[in-house]
């Protein structure tokens, strides 16, 4: 569904992505982990061409997107919904208007139909009472859920999540994780999640890829990931108190 072919990206003289290649298949929840500055968000931005690689190709549904025109790019982007790290809600619009924005811009639906769809998504994300509030009146977790409602309002095939749980308390973080799992289960959405929270990655991911200093050091299922022999991965797991004998092994065995 999304394929990175030998992508290299240099920013400010630093090689952020160093000749990386991987593929995200339809229907999976693909999690990208790594330390801060490992190139996780840069990878995500390449998928929707918010950034262009210095070399290599990004292929979406068989179509290389590096050199396509604006109209073709718009078509490609309609396949995506994106939840940004900061939720990226327009501050002068209410929650309802934020969620309705893509429908008003790209469809000929009347206001009644738009209102119905918006209410449906807000209900799905437990935000029914927040429709008339402004983003500044919401907590961080609620803002992320509004961002997610906006990301899925056009029924995209793929949803990209950039640090969906960063800055949130553990309870809200797990709630967001559940939402991501539900998106896949109930709507069949392919998800790409960028996070440095391994607990979250192991809970929601069907595959986990770790980036370190611009290179892929691991790309495996959660079960394989916690047994990785790579020293960087081991150290990353240990830094978050995750061991092979820990609860994750027990938890994963129930899946």
């Amino acid at each position, binding site marked *: 569904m999304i394929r990175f072919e030998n992508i290299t990206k240099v920013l400010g003289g630093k090689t952020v992505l160093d000749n990386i290649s991987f593929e995200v298949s339809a229907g999976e929840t693909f999690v990208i982990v790594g330390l801060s500055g490992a190139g996780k968000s840069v990878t995500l*931005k390449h998928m*929707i061409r*918010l950034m262009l690689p210095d070399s290599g190709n990004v292929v979406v549904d068989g179509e290389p997107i590096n050199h396509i025109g604006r109209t073709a790019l*718009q078509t490609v*982007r*309609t396949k*995506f919904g*994106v939840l*940004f*790290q*900061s939720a*990226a*809600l*327009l*501050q002068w619009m209410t929650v309802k208007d934020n969620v309705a*924005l*893509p429908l*008003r*811009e*790209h469809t000929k639906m009347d206001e009644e139909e738009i209102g119905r769809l918006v209410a449906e998504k807000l209900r799905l994300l437990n935000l029914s009472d927040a429709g008339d509030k402004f983003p500044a009146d919401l907590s961080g977790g609620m803002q992320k859920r509004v961002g997610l409602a*906006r990301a899925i309002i056009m029924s995209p095939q793929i949803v990209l999540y950039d640090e969906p749980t960063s800055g949130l308390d553990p309870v809200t973080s797990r709630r967001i994780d559940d939402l991501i799992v539900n998106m896949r289960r109930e709507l069949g959405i392919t998800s790409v999640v960028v996070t440095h929270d391994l607990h979250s990655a192991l809970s929601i991911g069907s595959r986990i890829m770790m980036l370190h200093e611009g290179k892929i050091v691991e790309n495996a299922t959660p079960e394989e990931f916690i047994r990785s022999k790579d020293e960087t991965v081991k150290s990353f797991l240990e830094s978050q108190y995750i061991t092979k004998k820990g609860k994750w092994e027990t938890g994963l065995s129930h899946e």
Partner: protein
Amino acid sequence: MRYPAHSARRLGSQVLQLMHDTGHAMFMLLEAASFCRYVFSKRSWNETSMQMYITGIKSLAVITVVALFTGMILALQTGLELRRYGQEVYIGSAVSVSMIREMGPFMTGLIIAASVGSAIAAQIGTMTVSEEIAALEVMSINPNRFLVMPRLVALVVMMPILTVYTNILGIMGGAVVGATQLGVSVQAYMDNATQFATNKDLYVGLFKAFVFGIVITTVACHQGFMTREGAVGVGKATRRSVIISFLVILVLGYMITRLFYV
């Protein structure tokens, strides 16, 4: 020997950067202008009318004070000089011609650049660093249509209107000073003021205001889109927007005057 080479390289890269930024700003302006045909569509009109309200109505208080005092200062300075020759009756023409040709559009441009332009740069800059612009792009919503076009229309419409308002108040301020401090009656002042100001003065002044509206929007929006480095970057973008707008308004004001009067 290294120092001159280093300086030349740095100068060269700054010139290239300036050309790149100018090209980017021009492209943004042209694209936004090409979307002006959608200004009356429902999705654009709400934002455009809001921007007109911010530019026009919300700036009235400061423009009123500045315009009145500009006219008063002009009248007082020229009046005191003219009184030495017994010609103070001519302050009407001095104030009206100065206001209509130069000071009206110039003062309005500076006020709008400092108040509205800085607000535009800060808003778009904040949107850029908080990924709202990226979110618009991902939703296939063109930021030049969604954000720049309504501001461009609002400023090119409101700037000439505000300039007329500035001119009227400036001339009125001059009349007050003439009547109270220089012994020139309001009737004599107004007769003199209307005798010397021509239609051409008015049209050129309004043309300047129109051009300044384009300049302020282009500079402010471009600086907003170029914002990096979080809150510090927003502050820098806002400051740069005001400085660049002031400089361009000054230079273009001179060039337009030269074009029409020399």
